[in-house]
């Protein structure tokens, strides 16, 4: 009966709900202490739902790829054999090149090298609202994952961990509006900061107007932000505009296709330069 009254007085209900949410916002905006508890609890619960759904979807996909989608297997197999043959040749070439590089390193006494300890993770969900570019992975604190760890893919940098729960974690993609990374242009070593724009492109900011930058240049992480390891590909410069100010306006096409990501690697070890051999999972 009381609920019926409330329904009839929707104006009052609207005021109460609005006021409640304004108070809720006010309480959070003043707080600067990490992740709110309510967010962590909600994410922890919902990540279980995402895990279940992801397993369900992957089951259906496995049935499809394992049984229904085997029609073109012969053609695909032939193509893969050809690819494997050319890849084996490329590996041999790379091995020879690596041997030569190691020899040169020894010659120059460049013993310092970067080693990364990583853990593989599957993507089990995307962003709950399109205004935020995040995704959920199936690894959490029990796998040694912590906030601000870098997330990478074979193609390049994916993002950083923002909310870890015990069995899942939320990753802020580099294309999110609030994401940024220290960057360097591989060819000229000009430094800048890569920031997300909310769509499928990145911006490279704070690059001097006089810096040598052209479309097609590869942008890699500089490592100065303390999150992303140095030398990982961010993307390729798509457009360079002169603004007339102190800095250029540079647009980057990310190396990673964020719409087709299925697996990523979380960098567990610190990103500073280390000496000696490291392990990679």
């Amino acid at each position, binding site marked *: 009966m009381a609920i019926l009254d*409330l*329904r*009839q007085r*929707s104006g009052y*209900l*609207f005021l109460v*709900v*609005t006021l409640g*949410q*304004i108070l*809720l*916002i006010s309480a*959070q*905006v003043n707080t600067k202490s990490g*992740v*709110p508890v*309510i*967010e962590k609890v*909600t*994410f922890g619960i*919902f990540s279980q*739902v*995402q895990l279940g*759904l*992801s397993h369900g*979807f992957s089951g259906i996909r496995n049935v499809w790829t394992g049984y229904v989608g085997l029609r073109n297997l012969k053609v695909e197999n032939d193509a893969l054999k050809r690819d494997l043959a050319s890849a084996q040749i490329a590996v041999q070439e790379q091995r020879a090149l690596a041997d030569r590089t190691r020899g040169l390193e020894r010659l120059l006494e460049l013993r310092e090298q970067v080693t990364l300890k990583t853990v593989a993770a599957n993507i089990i*969900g*995307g*962003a*709950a*609202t*399109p*205004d*935020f*570019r*995040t*995704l*959920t992975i199936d690894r959490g604190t029990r796998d040694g994952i912590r906030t601000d760890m870098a997330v990478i893919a074979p193609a390049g940098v994916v993002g950083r961990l*923002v*909310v870890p729960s015990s069995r899942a974690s*939320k990753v*802020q993609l580099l294309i999110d*509006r*609030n994401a940024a990374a220290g960057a360097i242009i591989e060819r000229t070593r000009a430094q800048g900061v890569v920031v997300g*724009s*909310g*769509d*499928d492109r990145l911006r490279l900011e704070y690059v001097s107007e006089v810096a040598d930058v052209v479309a097609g240049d590869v942008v890699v992480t500089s490592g100065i932000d303390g999150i992303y390891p140095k030398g990982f590909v961010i993307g390729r410069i798509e457009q360079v505009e002169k603004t007339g100010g102190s800095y250029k306006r540079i647009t980057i096409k990310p190396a990673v296709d*964020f*719409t*087709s*990501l299925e697996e990523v690697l979380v960098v567990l070890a610190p990103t500073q330069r280390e000496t000696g051999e490291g392990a990679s999972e």
Partner: protein
Amino acid sequence: MKAIGVILAVAVSLALQTTAARFLVRGSVAVDLVLVVVVYVALTSGPATGLLSGAIAGLAQDALSSSVIGIGGLAKTLVGFLAGIVGTQFIVTASIPRFVVFFGATVLHACVFMGLYELLDLRHFGTPYAVVAGQATANAVIGVVAFQIGELLPGAVERRRAGKSRLRR
């Protein structure tokens, strides 16, 4: 019973939004399925149900998005309430008026959501006119299609039975 249906619809849209994000977010066009459900519920059930479903859906989205909890909730509460009022005060049964309501609701949602973030200096959106227009169009198309399906489905079985019985005669 209706409340359970609304909560279920919001939960399903939220699950779909997160699991199918790669299909729903393409370049500058990003569909907000949860917002579509809120407007749908508001148009079919009135302002009270609309604002409550908006509040629940928005708060859930906020909690899952590392954002300030309440901003999305407030935006969706307002949208649900106003869409409910539009649904009760005007005849919104044809496709074009429905398209306009979904489009307007998305624009209003974006204004409140982005406006609050800008106002509190928490996040900057630049000039997102194209993004909002793309999202509003996509949401409106999905909303109109959802209404068409919602209206066609209940009578489909009866129509099929009637068609079969006519053939027998």
